[in-house]
């Protein structure tokens, strides 16, 4: 696996929280349109790797290259702007703003980026339809099921047409049927839009939706595509 043609490349990432090293020389790369599963036991540094890749957290050392730009050299505002415009995010839970309706939640990233309300909501409802949850558009997150809420979250992560989608245990709180449907919809939509997906999961059946997997153990990431 050569990094050539990669969209996002991380090299020798180190990150320590307090005295516990979360990342200890992790490497990673992903191509446009590729779905890469990041696997590993809990506490291995999966989420930290995702946070560093997405520019949410600055690594202590190492580099993260996105599309020719060094993320670690960008200011907080620039990284925020990048996350608003080019990245999308899905988390396991607690990500929808409870007082906004589902449609408003999906429209939120667009509106943060300055899109006008009408247009943002039109695009949001198109995505809700695509994820088969058009009927909950006007309900609040508290009033919908977990699976529906997660689909709303996926719709929200894709509505800006991101180039990289970061999904941290996106089906962690769902049963297998719902989880699978969410994964199907997510990967399908991502492949279609040539969106790269960094999929952090500890579930093999979820990881099976990826093109290849990277195993994080003791803060080191191992790309299993080249293991054989």
């Amino acid at each position, binding site marked *: 696996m050569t990094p050539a043609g990669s969209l996002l490349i991380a090299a020798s990432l180190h990150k320590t*929280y307090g005295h516990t090293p979360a990342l200890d020389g992790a490497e990673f790369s992903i191509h446009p349109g590729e779905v890469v599963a990041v696997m590993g036991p809990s506490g291995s540094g999966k*989420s*930290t790797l995702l*946070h560093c890749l*997405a520019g*949410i*957290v600055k690594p202590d050392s190492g580099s993260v290259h996105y599309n020719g730009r060094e993320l670690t050299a960008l200011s907080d*505002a620039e990284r*925020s*702007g*990048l*996350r*608003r*415009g080019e*990245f*999308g*995010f899905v*988390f*396991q839970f*607690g*990500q929808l*703003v*409870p*007082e*906004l*309706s589902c449609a*408003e939640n999906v429209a*939120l*990233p667009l*509106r*943060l980026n300055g899109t006008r*309300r009408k247009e943002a909501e039109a695009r949001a409802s198109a995505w809700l339809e695509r994820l088969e949850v058009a009927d909950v558009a006007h309900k*609040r997150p*508290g*009033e919908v099921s977990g699976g529906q809420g997660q689909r709303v979250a996926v719709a929200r*992560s894709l509505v800006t047409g991101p180039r990289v989608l970061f999904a*941290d245990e996106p089906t962690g709180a769902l049963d297998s049927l719902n989880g699978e449907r969410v994964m199907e919809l997510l990967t399908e939509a991502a492949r279609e839009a040539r969106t790269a997906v960094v999929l952090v999961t500890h579930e093999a059946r979820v990881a099976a939706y990826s093109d290849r997997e990277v195993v994080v153990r003791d803060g080191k990431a191992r790309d299993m595509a080249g293991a054989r």
Partner: protein
Amino acid sequence: MSGQGAPAEEARPHVSVARWAADLAMGGRFAVTGGRESWARTIMTAVGVGLGVALLLLASSVPHMYQQRNDRGDARSTLSFGDTQVKPGPDTLRIADADTTYHDRDIDGTVMAPDGKGTPPLPPGIDRIPAAGEMWVSPALKKLLDSGDGKLLRDRFPYRTIGVIGDGGLSGPTELTYYAGISPKAFGHVNSSQHLDHWGLENKGKNEPLDPALLLLIIVGCVVLLLPVLIFIATAARFGGERRDRRLAALRLVGADIHMTRRIAAGESLFGSLLGLAVGAGLFLLGRGLASGVDVWGISFFASDIVPSAPLALVIAAAVPALAVVVTLIALRGIAIEPLGVVRNAKPKRRRLWWRMLLPLLGLALLLPLAGGFGAGTGGGGDMKAYQAAAGAVLLLIGTTALLPWVVEAVVERFGGRGSVPWQLATRRLQLSSGTASRAVSGITVAVAGALALQMLFASVQAQDSEDTGQDPNRAQLMANVPVSDGDQARDAFARYRATKGVSDLLGVTEDYVSDVRPSEEDPSSIGEEAITVADCPTLREVVRITSCANGDVFLVDSPSYYGEGEGFAKPGAQVNLTYDEEGIPNLKEKKLWTIPATATKVKPRQDPAGGERTGIFATPAAFDVANLPDPDASAMIRLDPKVPDGIEYVRNASVALSPAMDVMRLSSSSQSDEFQAIRKALFIGATATLLLIGASMIVTTLEQLRERKRLLSVLVAFGTRRTTLSWSVLWQTAVPVVLGLALSIAGGLALGVMLLKMVGQPLAVDWSGLSTMTGIGGGVILLVTLVSLPPLWRMMRPEGLRTE
């Protein structure tokens, strides 16, 4: 009682007192043993409740404070009721008020001299009557005299300080007062004096019924100031409630029933409020110590005066924990704590308008019949009317507060997702929980509405009171009435003032009366009198309208309608009598005659700088020798040199040298009643304090809300939300309810104000300055809450929040 799956209503067993006590105690234990978080919650509640309790204790001390102060004031009073004037005797004391002012602070002074060789009465707080040239001073005055600031004041008192007046002789610790001894002869230079055979009032006014209007003001004032405190206490009892609910859910899981969880929650609040009582008592004691040094508008209290009334203190001690428990139970009514979590009633009942409207309407209904007739009602119904008015005002105020949640809900519901992202976040948040927001603000409503209404009342009364004085401070700034026994002394006094530092010019008039040379024809016992004013030409120009003036001229001004028909006796060429007997009656037996020159011209009067108009004979010194006046009054209108600082103090010092009991009046174009000024200030301070208190509870609520959504905030940061976006949403979230609360309270306050004005028969006038100040303070609170919330918000917006799972 398995209680399993049984509906809550059925499973209401007979709960024994012991059960209650055990559950309450368990709640109390939770309040302290739940780790740092529950300690923080308990402390927040305790501090909040404590602040409120301290205020309540202070309020309950007010009667005692005034009682003590008045008692001491009465004990040293020199007023005597009744007609019997004390005749000088061996055991009497001759005294005169010798009040003065220094740098705008009033100093109460009494000069005294024993009438005989006996034992004159001793005022409270001093050991012996000061001999001539000695004085006793209050501690505060001593401090002032000893300080660099009091340098000029030292020259005013030609006395040796022999001691400090004891607390028993003072109304408050910061009072400036002195007792000085002077020689009996010096009383000759004192305008008015009296003899005393004892100090203090003997028969104090026996519980005079309170003026109904005053009672009304007091009741409304109490409601305005104390209701927000109660609301604050109620809010404080609910600090951290959401988290506590989750803890209770965990208790349900291990088998507690609904009633038990409620009792445990009540126990937690009870513990917090009991701790709050202790904190409040501590704060009160602390504040009491500090309060003894505080001087507000010349009123101060000894710490020992500030004692809460025992019954009121008991009521506070009982009511505050009860309030906390009741508030908790009511708050829990709207939510169901299930074993697996807290279920807030997803669709809370729509707030009903009718009973909320009922309260203020009832209030108005009580007030309306009184409109226009309150002041007039001097009959026996006055008391009833006062209670009716007070009840009406209180209902109107409480009703306004009760309307607030409905208004907030109704308005917020109409926002419907339009506008910028921060606005959308804020309004949606408010739509979901408008109750929390309006609860916090409801204190504002009552405080601002009440303060506004009282403002209007006072402003209008004040506007009437502060009529034009007619004084013209451009022509002269000071006025001194010098007690003189003859015209020479008047001349000397003027010369002395002229030589005083800081005086640029002086208009001195010497006045006395002259009489007709013959008794009236109709009534032989009455003799016509006319004023005579002697002054130099520049001064005369200030008091009569003249075009030319030379020393030696005499002018005449007719008294209006004094003689009914025709002219008075004072005509050019007429003779007038200058002598008076000891009783002050024209003495026609030993006449001393003076002829008004035939050249005297009739002129019109002119308002002098002090606003007075003089009539009668006006003579220049060359035309009339002031030495001929038997008992003249000398008035000096003084122009100050604006370049000399403290000119007025030099003039006052010079005055005291002329007479030990003389004060100097400062001229101003309009006079304001000091009391109303003070009350207005007090209202502002009270309203500001309330708004700050409410701001504090809003800060706590906002922070709590932010902490609850730590994870959500981290997620929002992850997908690139700007700090400013969320900061603005916090601002809007605070601003919307505060603005609505202010709007409602302005409406309610204006309504109540109009009613109050109608009741006391004052013209309607809106106190715009008060209104804008209140609005400004409200805006300040919004900003304050937002600013204080920002650092924690930004701290929570860090991505570390994503890690906790």
